[in-house]
Structure formats: C-alpha cells, structure tokens
C-alpha cells in the first residue's frame, strides 16, 4: 500500500514584485489505485500544486507538508522525488535540444531503477508502449519534445509514465489539446498504468470528457489556492453544468 498526503500546503512563487502566495492550505490524501480529479478555474493554482509536488525550484513551500508513505517529500530533491515514485506529466513539456528520445528514456529508466535496463528487453518494451500509444517509432530518434505537436508531447509524457512505473502520477491537463482519438488512446495508456502498477492518479483537468475514460473516485474543486469542495464523480457533472461561480462568489 502506498499513500501520498498533502497537508495544509502553503506555496508562494517569486515574482518581480516579491513573493506571491498561491496555495493557501491544501489538504489531499491519495492512496494507490485511486484516481482523484482536480478541477478549477484558470489561475486557481492547480499547476502550482503539481509543480510543488514535483519540487520545481520556482515554488516555495512556506507551510505544510507532503508525505509519501510517511517520508518527507519536501526534503527531497526533484530527482529523489521521482526516484521515490512520484511522476508529473507536465502541462507544457520542455524541449531538450540535441538529446534523442531514446537516449532520454534510457537515461531516465536507468536513474529510476538504479541500473541500466537490458538492451533487448528495453527496446522491446519501448516499442510496445509506443505502439499502444500509437506513436511512430521514429520518435525515438527525434530530440526530446523538439518540434512535437501539442498532442505528441502529451503522448510522450504518458509514454514515460508507462515506462517509468511510478507510484503516483500527477497529470496536469494531459487531455488539453488532444483530438478525440488521441484522448482515448492516452486515457487507455493511463488506465493500463493504473492496472499494471496500482498507480494513484491526481488528474488535473478542465473537462469532464476525459473523466468518461478515466473514472475518478473523487473530484476536488480547486479555487483560489484551496480545495473548495470535494465529492464523487457526480460533482464533475455539476461543475460542467454550473461552472465555478458558486465558489468564486463565496
């Protein structure tokens, strides 16, 4: 059993006008195998939460804690967090010029598992995962995210998810910019990872569309740096119908 706990998390970001507080006391508990959807208006701090879990240096935790199976995540470096089993599929994946996807994937896998994967088995595994995500194998020769379309970048994120096998994955708007077929393919990729590794998922989205493919156990409404309400899948339907007005005015 694995558990990711976020307690009373306060986070600020450095701006030209000094530090600006964005997260104002976030509480969330995710167990392995569970899927939690986070929905909320633009600028409410969803990506900030995602980056804070991953340890992006731009965000400063001023209060609260993040625990992975009782271990203090905030004391870990970015790479230690990843090796401890946390994964972030980014809203805007970064280009790494001159570094091929195959080199990158192999390096990441080696870092996560502590030893280089056997070449034959690895090449096969990469190919199978790419086939499942309907990615052309030519992508392995391209440079990381360079010239990838929006949808290709998202598939590449989920490819990493399936190969690196984390305990918990934060998916930051992985569904944005995907066409109907890609949404289905990518969702299936996430579901396979859930089944194979009993993955816990924190799924940030603006649309209920993806929730038809990836069934959430819980839905959290994120407003102004806090969880304003939580409930089951039916809450997503209501948000889609009513919007966030109710919370924003409150």
């Amino acid at each position: 059993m694995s558990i990711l706990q976020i307690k009373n998390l306060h986070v600020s970001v450095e701006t030209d006008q000094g530090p600006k507080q964005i997260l104002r006391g976030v509480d969330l508990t995710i167990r392995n195998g569970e899927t939690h959807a986070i929905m909320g208006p633009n600028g409410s701090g969803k990506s900030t939460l995602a980056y804070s879990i991953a340890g992006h240096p731009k965000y400063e935790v001023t209060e609260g804690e993040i625990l992975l199976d009782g271990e203090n995540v905030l004391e870990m470096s970015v790479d230690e967090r990843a090796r401890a089993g946390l994964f972030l599929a980014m809203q805007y994946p970064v280009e790494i010029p001159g570094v091929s996807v195959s080199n990158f994937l192999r390096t990441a896998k080696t870092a996560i598992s502590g030893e280089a994967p056997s070449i034959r088995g690895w090449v096969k595994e990469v190919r199978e995962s790419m086939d499942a995500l309907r990615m052309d194998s030519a992508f392995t020769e391209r440079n990381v995210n360079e010239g990838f379309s929006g949808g290709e970048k998202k598939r590449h994120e989920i490819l990493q998810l399936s190969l690196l096998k984390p305990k918990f994955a934060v998916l930051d708007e992985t569904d944005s910019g995907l066409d109907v077929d890609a949404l289905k393919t990518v969702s299936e990729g996430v579901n396979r990872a859930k089944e194979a590794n009993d993955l816990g998922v924190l799924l940030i989205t603006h649309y209920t569309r993806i929730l038809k493919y990836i069934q959430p156990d819980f839905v959290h409404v994120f407003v102004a740096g806090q969880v304003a309400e939580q409930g089951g899948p039916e809450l997503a339907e209501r948000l889609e119908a009513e919007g966030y007005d109710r919370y924003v005015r409150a």
Partner: protein
Amino acid sequence: MNEQTKTAQHGLSEHSHGAGVPIQIRSARVRSADVNDFELVTQREEQWRYLSTDRLGGLLGELEEFTGDLGLTAPDDVTTAWVGRDNELFGKAGLPEDRISAAAWTTCDAAYLITVPSSENAQEISLKVTSADSTPSALHLIVDAKPFSNSTIVIDHTGDAVLAENIEINVGDEAQLTIVSIQDWSEDSIHTSAHFIRLGRNARIKHIVVSLGGKTVRVVPSVEYTGPGADANLLGVYFADAGQYLEHRPFIDHSEPNCKSRVTYKGALQGTKAHTVWVGDVLIRKAAEGTDTYELNRNLLLTDGARADSVPNLEIETGQIEGAGHASASGRFDDEQLFYLQARGISENEARKLVVFGFLNEIIQQIGIESVETRLAESIEAELARSTH
C-alpha cells in the same frame, strides 16, 4: 536558454557594422608565405588580441618539421604523397594570413597530400595526427578532392604537441566533401591551425571543427569561392575546461554569385579561466550577387569565472543578395530543462551533462553521416565524463 542574444537580419540594403576591425581590412590583410611580411605577434594585432603571447609558447620561436605520426586509413584509390613546393597544389588553396601560419609554411619543405579521385560512392578517410613530444613543430597538409568526388575525411589530433599547422582543402567542381578536424590534445599542448578552403563550381563542403583538449587551440578556417553555386557549411563545437583557451575564427569570402554559406559554432565553458573566442567574418563582395549566408555562435557558460568572447562581423558590398544574417548569444543553463530531466529521476549532475551534451550534439546531428556522428557524440560524452563529476 537564459541568454543575451544579439541578432541582426540583413535585407537588400547595403549595410556594414561589426565590432573590432572592419572586415575589408581583413580581406585586405597581408597574405604571404614569408614570415617577415607579418608584424610580431602581440595583442595589439587584431588577430591576436584575445590571446596572450605566453599561451603560444614555443610557436613564437623556431619551428621544426613535424616528426609525429600520420596514420591514414583510406580506400585503395585514395592516394597520398609528400609533395614539395614545386607541386602546383602547394599554396593553391590559400596563403598564410598570420605570422605563425607563415612560419609553419616556411618550415615545411614538403606537404602531405591526400588525393580523392572522383567517384559516386562516398569515400571514408581517416587521418590520425599523433605526436608524443612538444618540440615546436610545423605540419602542412593538402586535401585535393577532385571534381565530382564524394568523400568524408576525419582528421584526429591527439597526443602532446606544440604544433603550427596549415591545411589546404581543395574541393573541385561538383565535388562533395565532409571534413572533420578534431583537436583532442593533452592538456599542455599548444596548437594553431589555418584551414584554407577553396571551392569549385557547385562544390559542397561540410567543415566541422571539434576542439576539446589542449591548453591553447586556435583554428582559423577560411573559405574562398572560385565559381558560382558552391555551398559551405561550417560547423564547430568546443568545450573549454578550467585554464583552457580555445579560439575559432571562421572567415567566408563571398566573391562569386549565387553561393551559400552557413557558419554554426557552439561551445560550452566550465571552470575558472576557461576562455573561448569566436570571431566570425563574412564578406560579401560586389560580384557575389545572390549570396545566402548566416552565421551563428552560441555559448553555454556552466560556471562562474569562464569567459566567452563572441564577435560576428558581416560586411556587404552588394544589395543583390538572397539573405545575410548573424546571431551570437551566451547564456547559462535553462532551469526548466534541468527540472524536466530531474523530474524523471535523473540526478542534477547527470541532467547537466545531458543538457550540455544535447547543446553540443545539435551541431553533430547536422553532419548527416551516422558513423561520424556516433564517434563525435562519444568524444563529447567522454569529455563531459572527464570534466564533470
């Protein structure tokens, strides 16, 4: 990348600018095989301004002919010979433009000539220049890529050396040549090298300079066109560690119509007193209508205390060109790239190495010959493994 960028695009108007000495002066610079035609090497001379003379050591005094090893691997129909000054190819591709190059020229009574016959299939040639002693010496190489030939030549410099070198590179009409010069000397070595590239009608050259090892390395490639339609693609990568000085001064002299040139150099610097200099000169003469040129230099400063000088010069004497531009930028690590890699479990140190590798490998990827790309990528990985722990 976090960087300061200087860019300029030049359209159809006549335009001239650039730091330092105007380029006409460069093109009007002394060209001679006689040492006495040149001023003494001092930092008051534009071409030596960044390089303190004590870094040149024995190259400022008497030189001896190179006694190290020249190891050639080539297909049977590629021929080699030592040729004297009476050979028509001796001095055909160019003449020295600086005092040390002239001293080397005068010292060498014979040049090592590699002749590549015309052929449809690409010929792969490797020349290993190795030296084990640091007697100040001089070497003269000549490449004669015949019309319609197609070849790849990799020149590998390793060992201990204090060497002044001249390399003449003739690329015949319609010929294609990819030539790589790797400078991977021991850390006390001193090496200056002038490359004279002469392109025939519709000739194409990819010229790649890879400077990794040596206390002082200075490579000055110059390109001359002798007919229309030729294409020169000059690529360079360098990695300077603490105390290393690496200088590159590509010069493209567009004198013929409808020719193309690209100059792209990238360098990484790490450690105190790591110093690199890149001065890129492009001259488009009146007759060179329809010229298409772009030059770029980017440097990645990995630590404090390193210094990258970067000076692009572009001088245009005709309005009738396709395009001309240049860019120069020096920057530090992109934190977002490091974060992305670390978020995949890769340690900070490994992530830095990977980003630097990628930064330099972008040049290697433009070579287009897999065996050469793999080899150079390995050299760069080895250099990174040595210098970052």
